[in-house]
C-alpha cells in the first residue's frame, strides 16, 4: 500500500485571491524534500476563481497543481475544504503533505489527517527526509521551546505536518515556469453543508501589523516601569516602526497582548529588531530570531539575548534610549533635508 504513495504536496492557502506567504515558504521547503526523494512537488489549491494563481505556484517551485474551483469554496469552511482535499489525497495518494500552521491550515490538516487515518505533526519548525526509508523527519519545539522533538510517522501515509509561518524560506520565483494542472470538480452541495460564514470583519484598529513591520522596537521588564517603557514607543515613533514586548511586560499591563513577541505571542521577521531590556528567554527568542538585524540593549553582559543579536549593547537602557532617540531625530532630519535638496 505505502509503496503507492508518491510525491510531496503543499496545501496552498489563499485569501481573497492571494496565496498566503507560508504556502510559498512551504513550496521552498517542499522542493528540497521532493528533490531528495526524486518525486514531483505539487500544490493543492482550493477556492472560488483561484485558477489564475496556478502560474504563481509553478514560479515558486511546484511541478503540478491540483485545483478545485467552485463558488462553494469562496470562504474557508472545514467541511467543504476537507472534502475537496480528501478527494485529491485519496485519488492520487501523496507520501508527504504539508500545511501552513495558520488557524485555517491547522484546522484543515487536523480534519484531513483524521479522515485519512494518518499521523499529523503539529507546528513543525525543521523538516528533513531520510532518503533510504523515505521518512519525513518533522521537528517541533516542545515544552516551551526548551527542547526540540523529532516526530516520525512510520506506517501510515501520507506523512502530514503543519509548519510554522516564517521559518522556511520561499524560493526566488522563476518567471514563466510552467507545470501540469489537474483540475477536478468539488462534489458538495451547499444544502448539505452545516456551517455558513455570515460575515468576515477585518481588524483595522492595528495601524501597522506587527508581523509585517520592517522595524520593531521591543521592550522588556528592564525598562522598569510604564514610564521607562514609554521610551520604547518614542523610539518606534521616531523610526516609523512598531512596538513589541516580552510576555512579562504584557502581564505587567504596560501594553496589550497584541504586542507580545514569542512562542505564545507572534513570530516576526522584520528588517530591524530592537530588543531592549529583554533577557532573551527561549520563548521570546523563537519569535524574533529570524529578524534580519537584531540590536540588543541590556545591562547584563551575560544576558542570553546577546546570543541571538547581531549587535550587542551592554548598558543601561534608561540612559541610552533618550540619547539614541535624540541622535536618530537629528540624523533623520538631516537625511530628509539632503533628500529634499537632491529632489529639488
Amino acid at each position, binding site marked *: 500500500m505505502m509503496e503507492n504513495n508518491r510525491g510531496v504536496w503543499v496545501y496552498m492557502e489563499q485569501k481573497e485571491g492571494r496565496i498566503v506567504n507560508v504556502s510559498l515558504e512551504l513550496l521552498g521547503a517542499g522542493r528540497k524534500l521532493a528533490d531528495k526523494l526524486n518525486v514531483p512537488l505539487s500544490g493543492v489549491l482550493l477556492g472560488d476563481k483561484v485558477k489564475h494563481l496556478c502560474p504563481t505556484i509553478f514560479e515558486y517551485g511546484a511541478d503540478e497543481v491540483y485545483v478545485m474551483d467552485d463558488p462553494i469554496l469562496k470562504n474557508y469552511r472545514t467541511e467543504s475544504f476537507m472534502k475537496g482535499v480528501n478527494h485529491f489525497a485519496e485519488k492520487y495518494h501523496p507520501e508527504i503533505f504539508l500545511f501552513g500552521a495558520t488557524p485555517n491550515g*491547522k484546522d484543515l490538516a*487536523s480534519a484531513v489527517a483524521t479522515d485519512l487515518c494518518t499521523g*499529523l505533526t503539529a507546528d513543525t519548525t525543521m523538516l528533513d527526509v531520510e532518503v533510504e526509508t523515505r521518512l519525513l523527519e518533522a521537528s517541533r519545539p516542545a515544552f516551551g521551546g526548551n527542547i526540540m522533538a523529532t516526530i*516520525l510517522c512510520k*506506517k501510515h501515509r501520507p506523512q502530514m505536518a503543519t509548519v510554522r509561518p516564517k521559518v522556511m524560506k520561499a524560493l526566488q520565483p522563476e518567471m514563466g515556469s510552467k507545470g501540469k494542472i489537474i483540475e477536478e470538480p468539488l462534489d458538495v452541495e451547499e444544502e448539505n453543508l452545516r*456551517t455558513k*460564514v455570515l460575515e468576515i470583519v477585518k481588524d483595522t484598529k492595528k495601524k501597522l501589523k506587527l508581523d509585517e513591520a520592517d522595524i520593531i522596537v521591543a521592550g522588556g521588564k528592564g525598562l522598569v516601569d510604564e514610564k521607562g517603557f514609554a521610551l520604547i514607543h518614542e523610539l518606534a515613533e521616531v523610526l*516609523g516602526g512598531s512596538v513589541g514586548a516580552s510576555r512579562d511586560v504584557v502581564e505587567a499591563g504596560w501594553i496589550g497582548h497584541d504586542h507580545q513577541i514569542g512562542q505564545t505571542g507572534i513570530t516576526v521577521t522584520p528588517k530591524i529588531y530592537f530588543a531592549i531590556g529583554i533577557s532573551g528567554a527561549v520563548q521570546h527568542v523563537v519569535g524574533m530570531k529570524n529578524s534580519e538585524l537584531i540590536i540588543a540593549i541590556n545591562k547584563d553582559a551575560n544576558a542570553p539575548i*546577546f546570543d541571538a543579536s547581531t549587535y550587542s549593547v551592554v548598558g543601561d537602557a534608561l540612559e541610552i534610549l533618550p540619547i539614541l532617540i535624540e541622535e536618530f531625530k537629528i540624523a533623520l532630519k538631516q537625511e530628509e533635508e539632503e533628500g529634499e535638496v537632491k529632489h529639488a
Partner: protein
Amino acid sequence: MHIVVCVKQVPDTRIIKVNPKTNTLDRRGIPAILNPFDSHAVEAGVRLKEKVGGTVSVLSMGPPNAVKMIRKCVEIGADEGYLISDRFFAGADTLATSYALYKAFEKMLEEKPVDIIICGKQTIDGDTGQVGPGIARRLDIPPITNVIEIKEVDEKAKKVVVKRKLEDGYEMIESSLPCLLTVEKDINPVSYSPLPNMIKAARYEPTIWKVDDLNDVDKKQLGLKGSPTIVAKMFAPPKLEGGKKIEGNAEQQSKQIVSLLLEKPELFEKKRGRA
C-alpha cells in the same frame, strides 16, 4: 441542553526544567493540573448553561489521578464528570486520543444526546490543537476552531452563531447543532468558584470507564499501538552565535547604532515617504 467539555490533565510545563546535558525533562515535583486552556473551555460551558439551561459534563482521558482535575472542573461549575482510564489508552497521539474520546462519546450518547462539545484551543504539553477537530470528524459534526465568543444559541432551530478569531480580524459563523467548538482563552476569564461548588467538588466522584466498558472498541486504534506518530528523539534547539559588541559610553554607543542603521538607507524609506 447538554454541553460536554473535553479536558486534559497536564504537567505544569510552565515550570518544567530541561536538563541541558541529557535533553531530558526533570518532572520531579511538577504538579499535574487542569490544562489552562481547558479551564476557559469549562467556564465557557458553564456560562452557556447559565444562559440557556441544561447540564455541563466534562470528559477526560487520563490516568486515575485525573479525578482530582475533574473535581476542579466541578468547582468551576461542571455538573458531571466522566473519565476514561485504562492502560490501553496510554501513549496515544492525537489520532488515537480522538478515537478513544469518540468511543466515550458514543457511550455517553446512549444515556442522553449531546448538543455542543467544547474543547480548549490546545494543551500546554502536547500543544497540537488537533484533538478537537479529530473528535468532530469522527462524530461527523462540524468543528469550529479558534472561537472567541458564543454569540447566539437557538435551541429550537438547533443553531449557534459564534465568533471565530482570524489572523487579521474575525468571522461570524453559523452552524447547526450538534457541533464542536475549540475556544481561545479570550472567550472569557475564569471566575472564582462559588463556595457551594467547592463543597460539591470535594466529594465528587466521576463516572470512570475502562476500555471494556465502551462498545465495539478496536484496540488496535488505541494508545501507543494506535498512534501513527512517534517521538523519535529529543534534542537541544540549535545554538545561536551572537554578534558584534558595541563598546563605549551611552553616547558613543548611541552614535554607533545610528550610523550603523543609516548605512541601510532603504530601511527608512517608509518613514521618509510619509514625512
